[in-house]
Each structure stands twice: as C-alpha cells, then as structure tokens.
C-alpha cells in the first residue's frame, strides 16, 4: 500500500478529535495487521471507491468508545443503541472524508458508514491487500484505524510498466 495514503489519516484523526471533541490523539507507529479479527470489539466501517479502493475501520475498545461518544454527543449512549452507532459512524465518516481530501492527485469517494459490535469479528478486505493499523491513544482510551486501500492509479502504472518491460 502506498505509504503516502497513511499520513492523511494521521492528520485527519487528530483534526477531527481536536475540532469536534477537543481531545488530543497520539498516533503510534503504524504496523501491518496480523490475523483477521479487528483490533477491538467496536468497528465503524466505511468503504472507499474511485482512485483508491478498499475500506477503513475505526476499531474501538468498548470502554473507549463509550467515553468518546459521550464526549462527542454530550450524552451517554448504550453500546447497542442507534445513537451510539450513529456517533461512531460519523467519526469514521469525518476521518475518512478528511483523509481522502489530502490524497495527492487521487479522487476517491466514501460510502455511508456501518457499525459492527462483538468480540473477534472479522472485516474482510480484498485478497492480498495488507491492512495498516494506526494505534491511537487518547485520554478517553485506545482505538485503532485499520486501513486497507489499494491505489488504483499506482497499480495501473505498475501494470503498464510491467507490460512495457515484457513487450
């Protein structure tokens, strides 16, 4: 995956949390995801299409999610309530929307978000596409951004170069 697609997510998550929650986010070193399950038990998922295709998952510890949602909405919501799903969905929407606007020379669209709850659930991504995990730390607890995106422009360039070399 093109590493230049990762930095926009770092900037965007810090911007969204600072602006909407007044909550600083420390983003730790990115790593490649091992195993199939999401990092934590609450996932807000958004699809990306256009020049960059794949998915972005905002994966929260349940306790962190509850605190962050309370700070974001100003009210406490049960983890299985529609209001909770709406709030975490809106966070992944703003983070992904902000990130894609920073992709240089790439036009991408985002889907409407979905939210999945439960321990050890799996969000399937495209075969052979590595998932980059950005561990995030806040005063409300930990969460992670899992990014599995393929740069279609870069892939097409690589394919045309390979065809030219073999021709």
């Amino acid at each position: 995956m093109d590493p230049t697609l990762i930095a926009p997510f770092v900037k965007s998550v810090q911007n969204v949390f600072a602006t909407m929650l007044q909550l600083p986010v420390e983003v730790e070193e990115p790593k490649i995801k091992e195993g199939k399950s999401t990092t934590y038990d609450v996932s807000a998922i958004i699809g990306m299409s256009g020049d960059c295709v794949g998915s972005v998952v905002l994966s929260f510890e349940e306790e962190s999610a509850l605190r962050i949602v309370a700070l974001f909405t100003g009210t406490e919501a049960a983890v299985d309530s529609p209001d909770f799903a709406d709030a975490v969905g809106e966070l992944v929407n703003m983070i992904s929307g902000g990130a894609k606007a920073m992709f240089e020379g790439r036009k991408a669209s985002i889907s409407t978000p979905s939210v999945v709850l439960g321990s050890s659930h799996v969000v399937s991504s495209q075969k052979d596409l590595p998932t980059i995990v950005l561990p995030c730390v806040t005063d409300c607890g930990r969460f992670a951004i899992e990014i599995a995106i393929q740069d279609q422009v870069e892939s097409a360039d690589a394919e045309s170069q390979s065809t030219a070399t073999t021709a």
Partner: protein
Amino acid sequence: MKILLVDDSKTMRNIQKSVLSQLGYSEIEEACDGQDALSKVKAFGPDLLLVDWNMPNMDGLSFVKAYRQDDKVTPIIMVTTEAEKSRVIEAIKAGVNNYVVKPFTPDLLSQRIQETLEKCAAA
C-alpha cells in the same frame, strides 16, 4: 426563521441544532436524507437549509439540484466531509450558497450561517 437540517447522522443534526439554538433559532425541521427533505420542504417552507452530501437514498447534491428546480432563492449551506475543491465547485454550480467542511467548530458554523443570511438578505 425556519431552518431545515438534512443529514443522515442524528449526532450531526443535534450538534447543528445546538449551534442554531445558541444563535436564537428554534423553528427547526429535520430530514435524514434528500428524499425525506424533498417530502418536507413544501409543508415546512424553510428560510435556510443545511444539507449534508453523503446520505443514503438521495445524496445532498441530488437534493440541491431537485430543490433548485422550484426554488432558486432560499439559501442552502452544504455541511459535509467532502473537502476537495472540485466538490465545492460542483456544489456551488448546483446552487449551494455556502460551504462548511466537517469537522467544524460551532464558531465556524455560526459565522457561515450569519454571512450566508446577510449576503442573501442584501441580494
């Protein structure tokens, strides 16, 4: 002043409602997508619309284009995560009067609402 909020996220509608309340506006109607908004505009008769872009059933841009067929005057502010310049231009061409990128501070939203209303009143 009657204001229609069009956003599929109840969280965002609540945040916007809170900003509008602080500005002294209380006559607010909500719609969860473009189709819902189209079904409400005639009866409600808004003086200002705040419209999200990415929504299920009918997105904000399609709603603005449909709404502008009948009403070319009532101000519309797009409030969206779509931050690319090309998107802003697309929205303005469709008939949007002002644009707010999410995330936003309450101050920024207030400022955009006030400047939009002043500009439209002076036109």
